[in-house]
């Protein structure tokens, strides 16, 4: 469970520059956690973030990941049969 302390260690697993990151947009936060969990099982970090406004007017949550892991992310999305709005590179 989370608290204020949890929030401060809401650690970004990817300290790389913004241009090296991608984001998956979903229709439900449930799918965000499904993918985050699957990526964690593969040893890949990711982070739920507010959906970037320049990509969607949705007020929901997206999942940020290292762009270099894009193929793994897409493979997990396909394996889990997740419905997504799209995958974007954050410097687009």
């Amino acid at each position, binding site marked *: *469970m*989370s*608290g*204020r302390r*949890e*929030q401060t260690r*809401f650690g970004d697993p990817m300290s790389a520059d913004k241009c090296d990151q991608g984001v998956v947009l*979903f*229709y*439900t*936060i*449930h*799918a965000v*956690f499904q993918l985050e969990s699957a990526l964690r099982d593969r040893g890949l970090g990711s982070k*739920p*973030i*507010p*959906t970037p406004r320049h990509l*969607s*007017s*949705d*007020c*929901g*949550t997206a999942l940020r990941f290292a762009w270099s892991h894009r193929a793994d992310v897409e493979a997990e999305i396909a394996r889990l049969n997740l*419905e997504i709005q799209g995958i974007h590179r954050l410097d687009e």
Partner: protein
Amino acid sequence: MNEPAEQEPIYLDHAATSWPKPPAVSEYVVRALTELTANAGRSGHGPSVESARIVFRARQELAALLGVARSENVVFVRGCTEGLNLVIKGFLKPGATVAVSPMEHNSVMRPLDACARQRAVRVVTLPADPFGRIDVEASRELARTCRFDLAVVCHASNVNGAVQDVRGLRDALPDTPLLLDAAQTAGVLPIDVEREGIEFLACSAHKGLLGPTGVGACYLAPDRDVAPLLEGGTGSRSESTEHPHVRPDRYEAGTLNLHGIAGLLGGLQSRAGDELIGAHKRELNQMLLDGLLGVHRVRVQSPTDGTALCASFTIDGLQPDEIAAFLEREHGVLCRPGLQCAPAAHRHLHTFPRGSVRISPGWGNTLDDIEVALTAVRAAAKLGAGR
């Protein structure tokens, strides 16, 4: 006014709600209330995301317990009653025919009654034995001449604890979608909805799952279309006024009961592996029933073959509420008299309209508790002998 019993109360009303709760339940509720939590999945900031993660974890754990592969098909509702209403009102079309067991609670019979009045839905009671257990072969015969659009069956009766043969019923009505009312059995008896071909299931958090009140869950098979009871904000697809179709959001409009769901997660995590409490309940209940069978003037309405989850009985010459009041006042035994919100079941058991006394053991009870309850019933029966 009667003086309260001096002895410690013995809680034997687990069919109404479980008590005590595992320590993790209150711990999780308190943490959700006192640590920084937010509206789950609404805002994108850390506490909102972490609150949604609590919901996700509870959903995952409950799905695993119920044999659901994809947890988005388990949706949170306010309680078992809301889950039953969701399926009955969201699935049945006008003119539909519904099969029920004779033991259904009013949480099933009342929404069906409303559908009968508003949508010309027809309700057919399946043949059953004197304890209300569905006669599988007779139901198979009935299904040859009557097409059912839905079967609604309480897995275990809240009145006499009789458990239905779900696999047999599934086999007898292979083409009929089945809604299982698991109010008395989730967390108590093994349930594997996808393996057993159960299309819908509703349960509450506060009984066999040992969580708090105010939360329930409903399983909806992925290939079954059910209209939601509510539309509204979900934290997703906010740009549209059209309600989302994606699960679980489709069925979870409005702010979720995060604190209740956190408590449910505590209850689920208190279990060792897939531990269920049915064996313990059955052992205590059978001891109780064996004792009741030997008490003069006591009539038992529960199966006594070791399968029942609670005990229903009456005492000649005494009203059920008199008996329950005596048990509490003189012996500290807490139970439930009357119709237990299941008049249809009491009609079948021939105990309508007075009802019966229900004693329902749970996970925290011991053999000593049952001995006290039996001593109390024996004393009550002597009281009735003078009438």
